[in-house]
């Protein structure tokens, strides 16, 4: 801060340019979002006109001429279920990785952290193809079939014939895809925990786990939630890999009722059907309507994340700054 007041005095002209540039950049983001919402509302208007809010709760998906009827519920559920499962699997793993990397000796931690970050650089289509041609086969034979044999008749989650292209496979691949994002952010947050705080815990005789529990987690909680939300954002919007693995059911049959059933997410139905959708009729507006709902959910996730993080910050402020 001290330095910046110095530069401002140096030249108020450059300061004006900076101010304008920043304002333009800031408005640009807002304008893009506003335009996006406008375009989505405008182009999906016919389907809202036809179905009203029933479009969100409907389960039909019929693009046959003369029988057109669309409902987005199965895909909303499919998105939430796959993203939720991916979080359930991916977040604990990511935090484990972050704990190890942040506390391991630099010789191991450095390369390992680098490798995990490398996972983020793999394009999603590669994950999809790997999942489709290799992972799916093993996952079906060594995970899904035994689970189905053991619990198929008693627990509804494991009913249905497992053939590898289903909610479970898609969620596991999604979990792998969010690991680098979540663990990289979580690692940085854990590294930011003051060393004295950790050492203080050790001095009180804490084991490594107790040190994390007492010294790191309380300090890093908000950051970890933020990291998870980043992962959720990726899981909700992921398209390519999910489309290849989720089995792409449509309509009522896409409602997730078992881990071993094909389903569909909002982004995958758009990826699947947008290209060939007839420009006349409700099919195209329905797909754009799904995109609008997806945007709405993404915004909601971000707002919730924001509220969570700020509230947590307020509650813990005293503790953190001590």
């Amino acid at each position, binding site marked *: 801060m001290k330095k910046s007041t110095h530069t401002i005095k140096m030249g108020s002209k450059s300061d004006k340019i900076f101010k304008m540039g920043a304002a333009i950049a800031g408005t640009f983001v807002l304008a893009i979002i506003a335009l996006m919402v406008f375009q989505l509302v405008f182009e999906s208007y016919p389907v809202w006109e036809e179905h009203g809010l029933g479009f969100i709760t409907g389960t*039909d*998906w*019929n*693009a*046959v*001429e003369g*029988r057109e009827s669309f409902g987005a519920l199965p895909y909303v559920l499919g998105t939430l279920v796959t993203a939720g499962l991916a979080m359930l699997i991916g977040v604990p793993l990511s935090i484990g990785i972050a704990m190890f990397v942040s506390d391991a000796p630099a010789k191991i931690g450095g390369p390992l952290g680098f490798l995990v970050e490398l996972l983020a650089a793999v394009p999603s289509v590669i994950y999809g193809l790997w999942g*489709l*041609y290799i992972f*799916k*086969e093993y996952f079906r034979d060594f995970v899904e079939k035994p689970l189905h044999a053991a619990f198929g008749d008693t627990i509804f989650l494991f009913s249905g*014939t497992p*053939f*590898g*292209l289903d909610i479970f496979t898609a969620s596991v691949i999604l979990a792998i895809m969010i690991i680098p994002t979540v663990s990289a952010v979580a690692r940085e947050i854990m590294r930011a925990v003051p060393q004295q705080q950790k050492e203080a815990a050790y001095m009180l005789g804490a084991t490594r786990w107790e040190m994390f529990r007492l010294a790191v987690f309380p300090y890093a909680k908000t950051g970890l939630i933020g990291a998870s939300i980043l992962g959720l954002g990726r899981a909700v919007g992921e398209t390519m890999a999910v*489309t*290849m693995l989720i*089995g*792409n*059911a*449509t*309509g009522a*049959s896409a409602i997730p009722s078992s881990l071993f059933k*094909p389903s569909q997410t909002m982004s*995958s139905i758009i*990826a*699947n*059907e947008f*290209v*060939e*959708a*007839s*420009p*006349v*009729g409700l*099919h*195209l507006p329905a797909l754009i309507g799904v995109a609008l709902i997806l945007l709405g959910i993404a915004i909601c996730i971000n707002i919730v994340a924001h509220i969570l993080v700020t509230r947590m910050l307020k509650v813990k402020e005293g503790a953190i700054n001590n």
Partner: protein
Amino acid sequence: MKMIPWLILIAVLVTSIPLYAHAVSVPEIPDPSMEFSITGAGASFPYPLIDLWRVEYNKEFSNVYLNYQSIGSGGGVKQHIEKTVNFAASDAPLKQSEKELAQGTLHIPEAIGGVVITYNIPQIPEKGLKLTGEIIADIYLGKITRWNDSQIAQYNPELSLPDEEIIVAKRSDGSGTTFVFTDYLSTQSSEFEQKIGKAKAVPWPLGVGAAGNEGVAGIVRNTPHSIGYVELAYAFQTGMSFAFVENGDKTGFIEPTLETISAASKGASANLPAAEGDWSKVSIVNAPGEKSYPIASFTYLLLYDELSNSTNSIKEAKTIIHMMHWMITDGQNHSESLLYVPLSDEVIEIGKQGLARVTYEGEILFDYDGPVENQNDNNADSLDIPSWIKDNARWWADGLISDEEYIAALQYLIEQGILKV
């Protein structure tokens, strides 16, 4: 050394004579003094063929460049309606509602596709499982769920069908292949027609979906006891097992080949409308004929009958017509190498009649009075060189006539205006 001018002359002969011999039945060639860039957009199914046409046509007319965007039939139709491309390509004919937005659209069939039922039954590695349309419809409705179902066994007594669940694979993306397949099944089962219907994306009650022919083929190849439907070329290239399907006449089970699908287009061509007519109901599934494979369809080029809608120069309009004409005539010679079924003469004739209707600001671009009957040439559509010219050239090549005599003969032809150089 003396040969080189001769070769040039021969080359001139070969290219100019056919153009002259059918001057009335071939559109004007693109103005060689200008460069043309023709844009098209639409279906991905004919894309490999259109791309080959682009290259081959450019070899003959190096001043014409075709830019075809394979963005899907839906996108092609959209751009056609918005008049942002010179022509579009679609696997399905325009729906009535689409046609109202694109008044004056001509449908020019460009190639024929077939849909093949592939399966992966470890106990039956070879092709040739016999299926009727009704059985296929019941499988996709979820009414037949096991391979050893008595209905399947009834037609395949010689095969040992396993007692296994049928895993159904389908296209997840909107596609012309699904359109043809559901069009066929809707004719076979009234229940299928009512519950599912025909469209590029339909409400399947069950099955695993994958994008693209390669996606469905991938599921079928990797999943034992599965069944799926893919484009003919794709099944052939990947060497998958495929079913023989009962023909429309219900007299036998037909193996899908280029010949049986071509037979289907012949069988159906009697009932086709003119290019400017209503194609929305056209379907060549269940084509009559003992050797007609029942699951086939046309893929179409779409253009306006008044080209000032989509271009702003008459020369470009003439180029478009010449290129389309080339596609449905000379271009058909390239179809089989890419496993597309070439059009029959009857269908080509519909296309030519359609192109002859096209105008630019009211002016006819292609003066066509129907097929020219040439006594020396049984096939009126081909561009054969008349035999007497071949004879002359042969005599010259064999040394029976001298160079001077041959030149004199050629000069005579040129002077008389028979040969255009």
